[in-house]
């Protein structure tokens, strides 16, 4: 066989099962685009910004659990991808970014559109490559897929100089596609110790995060919770692991968690942490997090163990394997006193949802959209108040239903991630909750949504402000609202119309519920504009740096 480097890349991607690639062509990746144009298996999604391509890939990967690929050219193309790659690193999402680079002989000469993509991507990737010969492609591409998906997943960058793309290679055999490695071998004594601690605990709590979703093991987690009657809190990344209305699900913990959730954590005597990394938005002041609890920490990444909080016992491995071994060792227990205590906390300090019945209110529109979208819908958000409200009240039913930028907190994530989700799951409705600050950070890819006629319903709650920033200024900076209110309003409805997207405006609308229902029932992209007041904080809120017991707002009977 004889192929060019570019053809080898595209064939290897086909062999990995890739069917959709988002990206933008440019001088240094044109050979790859020429080869991609010949592919009958891969559809290309032309975005308007490389960051959009990165978040489309993330949307596909988050929904499918499989690595997704995006393309960018050298120089500005590559720098534009960095935020989406860093975002994937923080949330452990398997994406592979393939960039063009100036020819090998010109590297280091400050050539046109040359930038050190390899150097720039070192701290934000799981691993990265600068491919120095066409032969290397045969192991770099499968290896990139293996790495992205194995252990703790993450992003991989492959930088390919233009002359490597055009070089011809003669070879006999295609390498095997790169697949996820099996998890590390478990140490039975670690699992047994964890089981003994769980059995001895009177007031245990499960603290579950994105790692459980990555491991695809939510069924076993539910079995563990039910067998031991162990109440469960979820991180922002872990929403959907347990159905929202399961009696053992105490919802999201941390900065915007419900009062009873954080209060239960104050009282637990054992914290069983699985697939979590003790992020500061979840723990609050670490020294005062779960002050009475021993900790069992379960994770596939050994460097997460004892990083923030020293565990009493830790188990390294794939959570699915660990649960297989752990579940039979855990005693069936009623834990009636603890169940009763948690129930009374929940009754005394429930999640208060203001204006829940009004479909034009910040919380009401989320609840009404959820009702209309059904249990199967995928939900993407941007970053800000709308994101925290959605995390607090959306009735999640299953894993991989919820796409949000957790670790990096990237405004601009939502809409392109929703496009990616719709491409990966074309039969599902995809909701995208966004704010007027966030949508502006990637609004250009409304054109991509329109061109591909994806079934995404963008719900913009517009307070003409950077709401969460403004809320912090309100609470912690003496109400000095500086640079958080926009001086003038833009007409989002006209903007969306200009992009050729169907619009639905709640402004002066007499029956917003009916309008929302109409938007949801019409296939294809929709843009729903919901004007709201900037003076509606998200409560409860733990001040940054404070302990989780120091919540502001969200009290019952006030």
């Amino acid at each position, binding site marked *: 066989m004889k192929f060019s480097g570019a053809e080898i890349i595209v064939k290897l991607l086909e062999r990995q099962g890739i069917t959709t690639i988002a990206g933008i062509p440019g001088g240094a990746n044109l050979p790859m685009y020429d080869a991609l144009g010949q592919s009958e298996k891969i559809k290309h999604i032309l975005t308007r910004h490389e960051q959009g391509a990165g978040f489309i890939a993330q949307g596909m990967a988050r929904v499918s659990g499989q690595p997704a690929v995006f393309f960018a050219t050298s120089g500005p193309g590559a720098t534009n991808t960095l935020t989406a790659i860093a975002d994937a690193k923080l949330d452990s999402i398997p994406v592979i970014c393939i960039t063009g680079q100036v020819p090998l002989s010109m590297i280091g000469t400050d050539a046109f559109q040359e930038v050190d993509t*390899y*150097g720039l991507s*070192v*701290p934000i990737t*799981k*691993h*990265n490559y*600068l491919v*120095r010969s066409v032969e290397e492609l045969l192991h770099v591409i499968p290896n990139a897929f293996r*790495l992205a998906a194995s252990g703790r997943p993450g992003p991989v960058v492959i930088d390919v100089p233009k002359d490597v793309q055009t070089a011809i290679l003669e070879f006999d055999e295609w390498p095997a596609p790169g697949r996820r490695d099996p998890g590390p071998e478990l140490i039975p004594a670690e699992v047994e110790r964890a089981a003994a601690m769980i059995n001895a605990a009177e007031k245990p709590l499960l603290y579950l995060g994105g790692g459980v979703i990555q491991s695809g093991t939510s069924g076993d987690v539910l079995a563990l919770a039910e067998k031991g009657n162990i109440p469960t809190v979820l991180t922002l990344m872990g929403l959907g692991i347990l159905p929202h209305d399961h009696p053992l699900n105490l919802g999201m913990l941390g900065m915007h968690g419900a009062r009873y959730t954080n209060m239960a954590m104050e009282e637990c005597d054992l914290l069983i942490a699985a697939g979590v990394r003790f992020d500061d938005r979840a723990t609050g002041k670490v020294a005062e997090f779960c002050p009475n609890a021993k900790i069992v920490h379960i994770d596939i*990444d*050994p*460097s997460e163990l*004892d*990083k923030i909080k020293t565990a009493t016992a830790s188990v390294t491995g794939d959570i699915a394997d660990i649960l297989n071994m752990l579940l039979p060792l855990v005693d069936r227990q009623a834990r009636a006193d603890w169940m009763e205590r948690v129930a009374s906390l929940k009754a005394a300090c429930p999640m208060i949802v203001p204006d829940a019945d009004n479909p034009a209110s910040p919380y009401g529109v989320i609840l009404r959209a959820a009702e209309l979208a059904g249990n199967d819908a995928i939900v993407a958000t941007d970053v800000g108040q709308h994101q925290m409200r959605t995390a607090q009240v959306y009735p999640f039913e299953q894993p991989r239903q919820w796409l949000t930028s957790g670790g990096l907190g990237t405004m601009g994530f939502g809409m392109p991630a929703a496009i990616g989700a719709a491409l990966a799951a074309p039969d599902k409705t995809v909701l995208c909750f966004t704010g007027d600050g966030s949508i502006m950070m990637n609004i250009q890819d409304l054109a991509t949504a329109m061109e591909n006629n994806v079934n995404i319903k963008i719900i913009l709650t517009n307070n003409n402000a950077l709401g969460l920033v403004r809320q912090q200024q309100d609470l912690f900076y003496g109400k000095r609202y500086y640079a958080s209110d926009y001086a003038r309003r833009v007409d989002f409805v006209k903007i969306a119309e200009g992009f050729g997207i169907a619009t639905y405006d709640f402004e002066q609308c007499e029956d917003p519920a009916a309008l929302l229902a109409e938007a949801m029932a019409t296939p294809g992209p929709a843009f729903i504009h919901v004007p709201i007041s900037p003076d509606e904080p998200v409560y409860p809120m733990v001040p940054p740096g404070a302990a989780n017991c120091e919540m502001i707002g969200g009290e019952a009977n006030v």
Partner: protein
Amino acid sequence: MCKQTVLELRVNNHPGVMSHICGLFARRAYNVEGIACMPVNGGTTSKIWLLVNKESNLDQMVKQVDKLEDVLEVERHDNGHEVFSKMTEFVQ
């Protein structure tokens, strides 16, 4: 007790490896006091010796280094290593 330790790494030998390792220490604000690197195996792999202070997050750093794809092996010499005792002669 010795306040310094030496990490001996076996790594793949290509132009980006050093930046992966040094970058890891730099972005976690962990100073590398001394560094030595020599190719082995005809140049497909290298040995890197890092002289570092024993700080509270050293274990975390070792775990992070171990995670790097190009790092094949990490060994810790808490009693120092003669690479650095010999190199010291050059800076006396």
